[in-house]
């Protein structure tokens, strides 16, 4: 397929040829400067000027939303959601829309490169050499000296590497992603294991609920599966029962999710478990009957005083929760990224037991496992990554393959991945973009962009049905890149022996077919076919395969309330004065910074574009003598950052917050900035630089468990805001607030 779709540049100039329009428009076409190249071979069903639509899967995050991409003359023009895909039902988020700016990004890695580490330029090598280098790396090192570090997408490549590792004895691939770090997936699944006796990713049916209490879960932004949860939120508001559902958010900083809440509870960071249990106790009291053991030990008065939420408010919330026929409590986000994160997750999940909503509409489920999955697989927690980095630093690995991940940027700087990398003899990156990690690698063998790739992605959560989203190339590769799966298969063949046996495939497509062929025999599918070719064709055509039935499991709730739950407050690291809340930028997330239109999207809460800011309550700012755009130094035990101030009216005065997503030193021209001398500098800052190595009981990073200090620098840096600071905040109108 990808080879047949030849001439990408049928029109040398884009169909609308911006550049060639004569200055004197109105004077007719400037046809003399235009040349057209016809297709060598016109693909079937293609006509000049008519669009062709291909179903594929979005690779901007790991959720696995289905896309339909409009292509014209072999160029991808627009992405839309795949209406058939049960996960996103035809919808996309902003990042899914902007994925084309990744495909046609001017800063992609265009060829396989050999480079001296840290050097921006490098020598182009041929793909034959590249494959040989990979083969040698596999063959010439001991299995335990080979490590794979992979991102959350795509799953098919992970499966391929896992298969390779399984049968050759090399280290199992490690998966990580900054989004998962901020989602604390390990904590969620551990809490589920503790409460329900089974590990898994809970699914919260927001759309079916009447009252939703969210403890830090930013499910309208980047959390787990934002498109599907946003649809759920719309369901909550519009209500199946035609009654508008209520939504309460508990967190110290009003996220854009909390902005949609009917009530925002700015509790003191670290008291989430206490508050959840207190609400549980008060609600249980209202319900009558014996007090469950889970809530027995908590004192609502203490909860009120420690959290800063008034007792009356807690009572009112408890009443709301207890009296609703469809109450739902969701733990997530910053609430879990604290030293007591596991306790918070357990306490909040336990609240659901009062509502008795397990396995009911509007309640808690286990997410449906994807069709070719037998058990929940979670990514590495930061604790596990810490061990991995330690092994690197100890020189345990001779060769490291990195794909789909930019650990230098995404891991907290205190883990010092960059330094540990120095003790790995050979680093081979498969990065599509020249990110920080690719810059510190010996080789970059660029993978295709997601829209040029084959593959599939398991939908981990968000859909009631088990879904395997399928990917196919919608355009032929724009540059001299090659699918990493193809490179690995070819290298395994070259390495021969057990490697060749482990991956006995012609190419990536054959491997994919081998992986989806078991689905042919599964019942209840969206489609079925007798032979693999037809099945694979449908798989491409519809953008994946999914069952028609609900695949969610009901958690075993028998024991939830009969256990003692900890109401301990979180401990905070560092001597600082302020609680520090890093949060994922809803528009950029971990990998959006190189897409110009994502940079130009205003942040939903602050409307800032193209930069990083620190949110400080105006009262605190006044005390510190800070105005908007004043640059402050923020110091934690792990690091220092300089960042301009945004006086944010909806954050606790003892808390500050910085979005994660910027602060790149590489990753293309839009992710970085230029100083006056034309030198590449950081655009914005990366808040993970401030994070120390503190974990919760489940091994997730206590990213919201730091305390920091703020100091004014006297410098100013104007933040680009879409909003008017005069119109929205009344600043500069003559009546200072």
């Amino acid at each position, binding site marked *: 397929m990808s080879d047949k779709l030849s001439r990408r540049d049928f029109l040398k*100039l*884009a*169909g*609308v040829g*911006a550049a060639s*329009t004569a200055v004197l428009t109105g004077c007719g076409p400037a046809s003399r400067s235009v040349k057209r190249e016809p297709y060598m071979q016109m693909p079937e069903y293609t006509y000049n000027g008519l669009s062709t639509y291909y179903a594929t899967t979005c690779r901007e995050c790991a959720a696995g939303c289905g896309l339909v991409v409009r292509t*014209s*003359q072999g*160029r*991808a*023009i*627009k*992405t839309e*959601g795949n209406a058939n895909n049960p996960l996103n039902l*035809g*919808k*996309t988020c*902003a990042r*899914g*829309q*902007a994925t*084309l700016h990744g495909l*046609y*990004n*001017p800063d992609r890695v265009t060829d396989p490169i050999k480079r001296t580490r840290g050097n921006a330029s490098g020598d182009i090598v041929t793909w034959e050499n590249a494959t040989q280098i990979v083969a040698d790396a596999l063959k010439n090192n001991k299995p335990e000296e080979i490590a794979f570090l992979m991102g959350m997408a795509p799953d098919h490549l992970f499966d391929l590497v896992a298969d390779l590792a399984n049968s050759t004895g090399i280290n199992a691939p490690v998966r990580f992603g900054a989004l998962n770090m901020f989602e604390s997936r390990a904590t969620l699944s551990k809490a589920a294991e503790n409460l329900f006796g089974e590990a898994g990713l809970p699914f919260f049916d927001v759309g079916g609920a009447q009252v939703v209490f969210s403890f830090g879960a930013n499910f*309208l*932004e980047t959390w787990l599966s934002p498109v599907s949860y*946003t*649809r759920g*939120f*719309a369901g909550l*508001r*519009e209500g199946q029962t035609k009654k*508008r559902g209520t939504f309460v958010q508990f967190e110290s900083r009003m996220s*854009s999710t909390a*902005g*949609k809440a009917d009530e*925002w509870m*700015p509790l003191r960071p670290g008291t989430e478990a206490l508050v959840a249990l207190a609400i549980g106790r008060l609600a249980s009291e209202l319900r009558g009957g014996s007090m469950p053991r889970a809530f027995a030990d908590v004192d609502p008065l203490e909860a009120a005083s420690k959290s800063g939420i008034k007792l009356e408010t807690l009572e009112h919330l408890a009443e709301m929760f207890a009296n609703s026929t469809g109450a739902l409590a969701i733990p997530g986000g910053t609430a879990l990224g604290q030293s007591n994160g596991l306790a918070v997750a357990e306490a909040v999940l336990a609240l659901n037991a009062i509502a008795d909503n397990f396995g009911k509409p509007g309640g808690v489920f286990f997410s449906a496992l994807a069709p070719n999955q037998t058990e929940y697989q979670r990514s590495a927690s930061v604790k596990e990554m810490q061990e991995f980095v330690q092994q690197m630093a100890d020189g345990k690995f001779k060769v490291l393959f990195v794909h789909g991940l930019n650990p230098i940027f995404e891991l907290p700087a205190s883990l010092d991945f960059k330094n540990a990398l120095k003790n790995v003899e050979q680093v081979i990156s498969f990065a599509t973009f020249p990110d920080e990690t690719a810059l510190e690698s010996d080789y970059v063998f660029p993978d295709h962009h997601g829209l040029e790739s084959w593959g599939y992605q398991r939908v981990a959560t968000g859909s009631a049905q088990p879904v395997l989203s399928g990917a196919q190339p919608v355009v032929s590769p724009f540059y001299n890149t090659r699918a990493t799966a193809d490179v690995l298969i070819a290298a395994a063949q070259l390495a021969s022996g057990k490697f060749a046996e482990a991956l006995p495939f012609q190419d990536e497509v054959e491997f994919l077919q081998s992986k989806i062929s078991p689905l042919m025999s599964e019942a209840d599918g969206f489609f079925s076919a007798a032979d693999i070719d037809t099945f694979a064709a449908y798989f491409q055509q519809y953008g994946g395969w999914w069952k028609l039935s609900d695949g969610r499991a009901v958690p075993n709730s028998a024991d939830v309330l009969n256990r003692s739950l900890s109401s301990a407050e979180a401990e905070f690291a560092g001597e600082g004065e302020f609680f520090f809340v890093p949060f994922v930028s*809803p528009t950029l997330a971990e990998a959006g910074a190189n897409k*110009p*239109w994502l*940079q*130009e*999207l*205003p942040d*939903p809460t602050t*409307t800032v*574009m*193209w930069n990083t800011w620190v949110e400080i*309550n105006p009262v605190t700012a006044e005390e510190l003598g800070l105005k908007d755009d004043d640059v402050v130094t923020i110091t934690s035990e792990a690091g220092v950052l300089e960042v301009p101030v945004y006086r944010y*009216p*909806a954050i*606790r005065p003892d808390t500050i917050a910085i979005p994660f997503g910027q602060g790149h030193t590489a990753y293309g021209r839009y992710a970085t*900035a230029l100083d006056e001398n034309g030198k590449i500098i950081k655009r914005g800052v990366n808040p993970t630089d401030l994070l120390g190595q503190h974990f919760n009981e489940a091994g997730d990073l206590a990213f919201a468990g730091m305390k920091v200090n703020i100091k004014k620098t006297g410098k100013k840096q104007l933040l*680009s805001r*879409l*909003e*008017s600071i005069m119109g929205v*905040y009344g600043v500069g109108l003559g009546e200072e607030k």
Partner: protein
Amino acid sequence: MIKPEEIKMSTDESGKWGMVIDQDICTGCQACVAACAMENNISFVGEADSGYGRSMHWIRIERFWEGEYPEVKMTPNQPMMCQQCGSATCEPVCPAFATIHSQAEQLNLQVYNRCIGTRYCANNCPYQVRSFNWRDYERPEPLPNQFNPDVTVRRRGVMEKCTFCIQRIHKAQDKAKSEGREVLDGEFTTACAQACPASAITFGRVDDPESLVSQLAHRGHGVKHLEELGTLPNVTYFKGG
């Protein structure tokens, strides 16, 4: 030939295409903004210009604050785009007829190639939804490969604004005509409405009482912004709650 006296004024009608926006479920996620930019070849302008009020968004999501901490509330997100007024104040002030009222589609047209850049229309737009090409904003190769061939790429000195994705309207009409039928309700929609994960935006024929958008619009307590100016906007907002 059309005699001037035969021209129908838009006050006589209810408009043709319209939108309903449910602010209660709009999460402010910016998917519509990104979708609009991708569909309509909108330039990005960079940090300095965007911070100076020159961003080219055809749709922007407004939010304000009510109250003070801790009783502070974010007002419902309000996506603002061209309201396709039936009696648009931008139209009569253009000396070149570059922005006029389409009789066929009852839309407020911006004819880029006729625009000479007086920017009077933008001044006179009470919704402030027009954006001006202050420069030839750079889109380095190969970014232009993504351009939508159905939408003109604008250059410096030209005003632009939301068109209700008129290219999609034409495409749907062309398709329906080639199949010998009328355009069906929901057969196509604008880029913003198509992307919106919460389905907060509904687009369709407001002159067809059976259409979804008409039914939503007549649900009650919907607001048309600055209606008091007599602009006859075609976008209805529901603040919700």
